[in-house]
């Protein structure tokens, strides 16, 4: 079976800085992969290369055996951050409708099938009951469920979720993860889930892709998130501490994972 994602010797430089240096990874169809790493490790860069909006400097990415551009229709994508609708009353549903076959020519007419498709994805993420309210008045958790619904349009085989937990409280984080897990069960899609903190995902993910120092390590949590393995990746002493089934990645200066959350920004490019 063709792997969902095959990355070989992937190098990406942005503005003269090598963000990713020769990383390799093969992800099988149906896997739930958590993607972690400190700020600037290239998580969003990798995501953009997978969805085809950033060309590799060297190496290759095959999505279900195709180039990212060819695979675009089978990839659901939830970009980081959203908003800018604060001065409008546009409903969540209107935004999803705009994204449904939004790459076609013509006027933005929503056909009957499109309306059904929009209904379907909003139901899957349980966003249907608030989808007619203006997007600007929705809570962070509700907005994320709308964005997740949008990523499900067209039944994609691969879901790429870039920091969907950012700025959500623990309760809404749990709700969203539950939602993604349900989607996976329903569709058997492969899921790439980028996050700062791995703890909320411990129960749902199959493997971990950890990015640091330009490199990447892919494998089971117990193999990848260990002091020796991460120290090698970071290039300096890292300690992995486990407390009551929780994992903490700590550097000499402090808690790596938490310092990221404190000054979280969207710009990795």
């Amino acid at each position, binding site marked *: 079976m063709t792997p969902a994602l095959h990355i070989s010797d992937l190098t990406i430089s942005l503005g003269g800085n090598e963000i990713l240096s020769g990383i390799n990874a093969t992800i099988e169809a149906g896997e739930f992969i958590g993607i972690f790493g400190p700020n600037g490790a290239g998580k969003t860069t990798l995501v953009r290369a997978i*969805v085809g*909006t950033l060309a590799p400097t060297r190496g290759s990415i095959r999505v279900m055996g195709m180039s990212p551009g060819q695979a675009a229709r089978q990839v659901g994508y939830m970009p980081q951050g959203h908003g800018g609708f604060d001065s409008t009353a546009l409903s969540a549903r209107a*935004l999803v409708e705009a994204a449904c076959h939004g790459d076609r*020519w*013509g*006027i933005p007419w929503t056909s009957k099938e499109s309306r059904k498709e929009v209904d379907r994805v909003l139901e899957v993420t349980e966003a249907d009951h608030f989808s007619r309210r203006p997007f600007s*008045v929705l809570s962070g958790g509700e907005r994320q469920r709308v964005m997740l619904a949008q990523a499900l349009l067209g039944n994609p085989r691969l879901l790429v979720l870039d920091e969907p937990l950012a700025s959500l409280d623990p309760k809404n984080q749990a709700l969203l993860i539950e939602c993604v897990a349900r989607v996976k069960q329903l569709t058997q899609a492969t899921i790439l889930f980028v996050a700062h903190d791995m703890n909320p995902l411990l129960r749902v993910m199959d493997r971990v892709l950890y990015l640091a120092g330009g490199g990447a390590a892919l494998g089971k949590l117990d193999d990848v998130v260990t002091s020796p393995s991460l120290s090698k990746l970071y290039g300096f002493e890292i300690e992995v501490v486990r407390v009551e089934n929780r994992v903490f990645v700590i550097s000499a200066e402090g808690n790596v994972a938490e310092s990221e959350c404190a000054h979280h920004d969207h710009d990795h490019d």
Partner: protein
Amino acid sequence: MNYLSYEFVQNALIAGTLAAILGAIVGYFVIIRNAGFAAHALAHIGFAGAAGATILGLSSLEGMLLLTVGSGLFMGAAGDKVHRNDLAIGMVLSMSLGLGVLFLSLYSGFAGQAKAILFGNIFGVSHGQIVEMVLLSTLSLAALAIFSRRLLFASTQPRLAEARGLSLTGLSMTFMAVLGVSVTLASQIVGVLLVFTLVIAPPGIALRLCRSFWPGIFLSVALGVAAVWIGILLDCASGFPATFWITTLFFILYLLVEAYCRFFVKSGH
């Protein structure tokens, strides 16, 4: 009410209706794209075109059109993606205003016409201008009919649209060219300084009220056309300029809508 039998009133109504329809539709995308500054700048850039046209022997409409569409394309190319284009717009704006000043000083007889361009000359629209306006607005609406679906998608979800293979720069350039045409038409009616009245006010108000695309577009067009007609007829009856009436109508409407949104939409849902 026999003003309607005068040809200059009929011409004013036809030209005003055309400018209002195009402004209302194009303006809808201006609001969604947060491109108000670009619309404002394009109108003022047109002033230089109108001033320069006299020297080159073109009509002021042709001169404006040349410069607004040209700079629209430039702005679209310079500032793709996520609103980093304020600098580019500001630079083009100041350069063309400088040119406008130069043209004014070179051709002193232009002062009277300059006032008409700045504040509009709704009753001075000639039959020939109407033919030009019909042609231009048909062309712009036809262009929108072809690419508005993609434009709406790219305007609401740029990252997603990019991942679906849409060229954000291409869409942005096309849209800015169409915007150039519409601000040129609108400024024939209300003048360069008041283009906001036809391009920003109707869709801005419609987007505060309507939660989905088509109702928003229809309300925007209805508001624009109604205000232009009422303004022109009040001008005939009162002698106060139509532009004053149109802006006043929109301002009152804006205040009412803001109050409505504050008290009902935000608090409840």
